[in-house]
């Protein structure tokens, strides 16, 4: 097993453990901290999938901006005390079981996929350029320019919407 593959399995295990902590933690603060850890480990997984640009964006946007937003809201609502233990009811059990069933079905169907679908990575020049900022930026600013600009409009709408919704009186 190569060092890359070994690192992938280590990061994958850490991701699953910290994501489980997000779901199972009692207090929202613990959940938020586990979520930060999940995002960092996922950034490692992304880098191992040769998606360097997205790995950096993951740390900047998710672990940086979005998590700060979550922490602000948790502290603003002062929800630092842990919740009481959850009670089981039919809806919860059915919901959790259906999620587990979906996961089993997904993994069973993914497992039938070929492990090395295309032989493109043998071309070492192409593999070295794959996922770098240059390649991704080039494709975003040429073929996907219109969607990219509409995303800026979406973010503007989100900013205005957030202010309108959260302010008590305008």
């Amino acid at each position, binding site marked *: 097993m190569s060092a890359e593959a070994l690192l992938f399995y280590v990061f994958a295990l850490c991701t*699953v453990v910290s994501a489980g902590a997000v779901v199972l933690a009692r207090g929202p603060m613990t959940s938020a901290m586990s979520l930060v850890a999940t995002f960092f480990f996922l950034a490692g997984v992304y880098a191992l999938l040769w998606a360097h640009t997205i790995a950096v964006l993951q740390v900047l946007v998710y672990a940086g901006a979005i998590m700060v937003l979550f922490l602000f809201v948790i502290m603003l609502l002062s929800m630092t005390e842990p919740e009481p233990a959850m009670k089981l009811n039919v809806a919860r059990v059915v919901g959790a079981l259906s999620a587990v069933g979906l996961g089993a079905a997904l993994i069973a169907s993914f497992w039938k996929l070929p492990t090395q679908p295309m032989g493109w990575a043998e071309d070492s020049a192409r593999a070295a350029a794959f996922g770098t900022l240059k390649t991704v930026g080039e494709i975003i600013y040429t073929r996907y320019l219109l969607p990219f600009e509409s995303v800026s409009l979406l973010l503007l709408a989100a900013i205005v919407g957030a*202010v309108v919704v959260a302010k008590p009186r305008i």
Partner: protein
Amino acid sequence: MLPVPLPHTLALAAVLFCLGMVGVMVRRNALVVFMCVELMLNAANLTFLAFAQAHGDTTGHVSAFFVIAVAAAEASVGLAIVIAVFRSRGTVNLEELKTMKH
């Protein structure tokens, strides 16, 4: 030669998606439900990146980039809604917010 077989990456994405889904189904704190939605979005991103690597196609990275942008917009508006609900009802427990249920 890919360092990690494609099914293993996709299995990680599936596990992550299911953990997020279990959280959305089971948890009753609106903020934690939001965090679990973020987990599910990350699982979608992971799938995009895995297939992008397997096919040598950068378009998957562009899709992941858009998912991140949409997640940022979703988080800001969603958390604003949580604050507004907390201000008018004094709770973010989803079991106590039943006005829209029949």
